[in-house]
């Protein structure tokens, strides 16, 4: 008789399996979890801590907070950040002072580890939320984060 009970038990487990998928089939109206990505672009809002890309926020008078101390360049494991700085004369004190010329950021080599933002003493760089970074030619991935003609925010000292 074990032969028939075995068949019966087998079919019973198959039916319970089917009941699970059946339940999802019937409630498929509200159940779908697919994100209709290209269509829901306006309503799509990433979490505020989302690590999209590194950006350098500028205030209205086009001033940023980066003093060019190169701590982030040293902390970065992949050599993504290159800071080109030169000696400039500070307005108030008139002494020689380090000024950044270009904050070069190679997005193609960045692994989003967050060590640069963690180690920056003046909170000059932040996480941007934009994740659509695909480009047609690789050189477009090398970006200069500080706007042309932007100056250091006075009163920011490292």
């Amino acid at each position, binding site marked *: 008789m074990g032969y028939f009970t075995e068949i019966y038990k087998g079919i019973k*487990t*198959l039916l319970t*399996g089917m009941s699970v998928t059946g339940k999802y089939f019937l409630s498929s109206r509200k159940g779908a979890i697919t994100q209709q990505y290209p269509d829901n672009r306006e309503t799509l809002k990433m979490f505020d*801590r*989302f690590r999209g890309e590194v950006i350098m926020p500028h205030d209205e008078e086009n001033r940023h907070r980066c003093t060019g101390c190169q701590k982030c360049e040293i902390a970065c494991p992949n050599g993504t950040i290159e800071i080109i700085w030169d000696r400039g004369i500070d307005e108030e004190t008139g002494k020689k002072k380090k000024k950044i010329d270009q904050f070069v950021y190679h997005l193609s080599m960045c*692994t*989003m*580890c967050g*060590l640069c933002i*963690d180690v920056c003493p003046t909170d000059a760089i932040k996480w941007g939320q934009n994740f659509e970074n695909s480009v047609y030619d690789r050189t477009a991935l090398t970006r200069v984060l500080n706007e042309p003609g932007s100056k250091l925010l006075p009163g920011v000292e490292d």
Partner: protein
Amino acid sequence: METTTKETNFKSEEYFINMGPQHPATHGVLRLLLTIDGEIIRKVEPDLGYIHRSIEKMCERDSYQQIVHLTDRMDYLSSNINNEAVCLTVENALQLEIPERVKVIRTIIGELTRISSHCLWWGVMGMDVGALTTYFYGFRDRELINDIFEETCGARLTMNYNVPGGLMFDIHPNFVQRVKDFLVHFKTKLPEYDRLLTGNVIFHKRTKGVGILTKEDAISFGASGPVARASGYSCDVRKHHPYSALDKVSFNESLKTEGDTFARYQVRIQEMWESMSIIEQLIDNIPEGEHRVTTNAVIKLPKGEFYQKVETARGELGVYIISTGTKSPYRLKFRSPGFSNLSLLNHIAIGGKIGDLVATMATLDLVIPDIDR
């Protein structure tokens, strides 16, 4: 080499098939050189190195914070636990005093990573054995955990949230609420996993008595994690060498003795229940306090050797640092769980069919970057 099987007198020739680096069942770039005789497998020889980035050589030039971010790319399914392993090694070496809050949060996030890794494993296990719908149910639950991580750490897979000395930033205000919602949701879904796949008679036929690993072999092959616990060898690092807040939680180790594919499957399902109970014990009383202890910018470990064991979703990850007091380690070796679990594949797959090999490999839960490092 031709083998004459007893009953039939005509010779059967073995031929050689390439379950190559690009194959749906290998979940990654692992190449298996199969010598098969018809459907029966005579020999399995893994050919590794397709995703070898020599992380250990890179670590010899990186600072300790940078090494932590490399471990995300090793076993990407339990990246938080890998980070925690390196951070613990560095903190124990420096005898840093870690605040209670950090320990509790690290354990919660570690257990969440384990559940999300087991969800992915369950989905892919179903797909390997043929039931394609399990993949989507497994990923639906994994997405909820990824959202929790994305909100707190900012990234979904390679978190890099632990730093030597604590956490990069504090948990997000509604982290606790999201984890509680997830627990409520997952408590209704896990029994569904059992009804859909565990009970299924076809699944029993495909996994019971397949790829049997005895306890002695498990120990001799250095297996660890669910693979070894399914053969009765109690090797849970969370029990024998507790770290972070694991000594303050009570949970039982899921052990089985049959050691076949079904036992490994049951151990992982049981582990998901255990992880949920651990999170429940901790989620309500996360102590207040600092989320990070400030360490000096360039960490220099004292001269000597340091070893730290951690229980990842795949098994026992060991971080062995030999330091001569400079800013980067003299030699750093990762004892990867997948590496030893793979070495026993040949031993348990011989004699089985191709379908058995695929089912066994699914329960070994191999992550190839973890093997190749």
